[in-house]
């Protein structure tokens, strides 16, 4: 009845004698683990060719635009004649918009430093390598934290009247809740939202705020940083 196993299982830690290790990967883990390499192409000529096409495309677009758009040149610099408003280059206008609401130490120093630090630590912080959706477990604890963070942000921003930050924050915050309440929806958009992990939501919130602030600072701010319409 009880037949002896015809094979033996052994563990060896002697890498010289038994140089093989077997690992079973059942779920998606790190990008280091490649399921399959797939077909490959030689860089020469395939990459070179595509890069050349991309470069030519870019060159054509740039040349055409440079023929029709003129770089601005105003009057000679005059330290005694302050324009109103004085604006930084466009990619800093988001910051300048923040300075309008918050004390300079917060908007000019603390927030930019935090953003750069946050960017640097992203790859070391994101432990959710499998990309589990935000509401994957429908955990109520997570919902409490989500609502808590949202409430704190809301109150802080409202206190400072920082409504150009508040509007995109509320928008993204509400969109983040939709997949929780409609988990079985068939709509492709909701399915897409529902499958996104927490880092996706944080980055999307950041981009939404940054774009809004930059656009407002560039097009909607006039003398004394008051609201103006770009067409008036």
């Amino acid at each position, binding site marked *: 009845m009880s037949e002896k196993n015809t094979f033996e299982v052994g563990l060896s830690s002697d890498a010289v004698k038994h140089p093989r290790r077997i690992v079973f990967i059942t779920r998606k883990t790190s990008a280091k683990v*490649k399921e399959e390499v797939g077909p*490959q192409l030689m860089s020469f000529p395939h990459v070179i060719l595509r890069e050349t096409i991309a470069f030519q495309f870019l060159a054509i677009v740039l040349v055409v635009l440079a*023929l029709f758009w003129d770089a601005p040149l105003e009057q000679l610099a005059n330290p005694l*004649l302050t324009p109103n408003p004085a604006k930084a280059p466009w*990619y800093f206008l988001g910051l300048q918009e923040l300075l309008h609401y918050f004390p300079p130490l917060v908007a000019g120093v603390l927030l930019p430093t935090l953003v750069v630090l946050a960017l640097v630590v992203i790859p070391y912080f994101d432990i959710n390598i499998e990309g589990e959706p935000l509401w994957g477990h429908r955990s109520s604890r997570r919902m409490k934290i989500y609502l808590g963070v949202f409430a704190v942000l809301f109150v802080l921003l409202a206190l400072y009247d920082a409504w150009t930050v508040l509007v995109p924050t509320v928008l993204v915050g509400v969109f983040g809740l939709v997949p929780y309440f409609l988990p079985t929806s068939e709509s492709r958009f909701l399915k897409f939202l529902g499958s996104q992990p927490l880092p996706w939501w944080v980055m999307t919130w950041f981009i939404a705020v940054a774009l809004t602030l930059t656009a407002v600072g560039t097009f909607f701010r006039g003398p004394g940083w008051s609201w103006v319409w770009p067409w008036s």
Partner: protein
Amino acid sequence: MATTDWTHQRLEQLRQTRVWRSIFRRGPARTNRTRSLAVFGNFALHTLPVKVREKSLSVRATYYLGSISFFLFVVLTITGVLLMFYYHPAVPDAYRDMKDLIYVVSNGVFLRNLHRLAAHAMVVAVFWHMFHVFYRGGYKPPHEFNWVIGVGLLMVTLFLSYTGYLLPWDQLAFWAITVGTNIISYVPVLGRPIRFLLLGGHIIGQNALLRFYVLHCVILPLAAVGLIGMHFWRIQKDGGITVRDDHE
């Protein structure tokens, strides 16, 4: 057709010459062996991998945003060097040089437009590239450190654009830099010393222009070249770029 044959024969003869073979040691890139040699035996191309996964070349995988950032940097270097021939980092000569570019130098307007346009475009492209890398999970192991190098590149790109902004020495330039450097003075303790170091004084004047010029034309471009080199080299060492499953 006869002419193409003739061209091919002449090319073939050229390839057999001693001079040609001293420069390109490999033969024509007709086999996979010589195609590999074409990449890693070439100084300009050796940061590229010899082979790439086919799916990483699809437009949707990257939108070529990293490459476009790099090309914009190349365009900026070339147009920038040309602009340097016409530019004096002095007050108020700098502004006069802008006027000369517009009214005197042949194609000066075009040259300046191209440089300015490419500069704006590079800031956009680098940001977009960063966000695209984020959304495809390109920062995950083993690409962590390349992401950090990328953040360095973002800073260098912004600072390059910012230092260039002062150089025309017009009202736009002067007050934009005033707004920016005033923020630096809010940094606790170190703020004022840093601002002094950057401007070479307490005001934005001749010294500040010279410092921004040296940063813009020498120090920051060198930093960018170094970081871009590391960035590309690491993409190859990390085993190519990340491709999202649904983008295959």
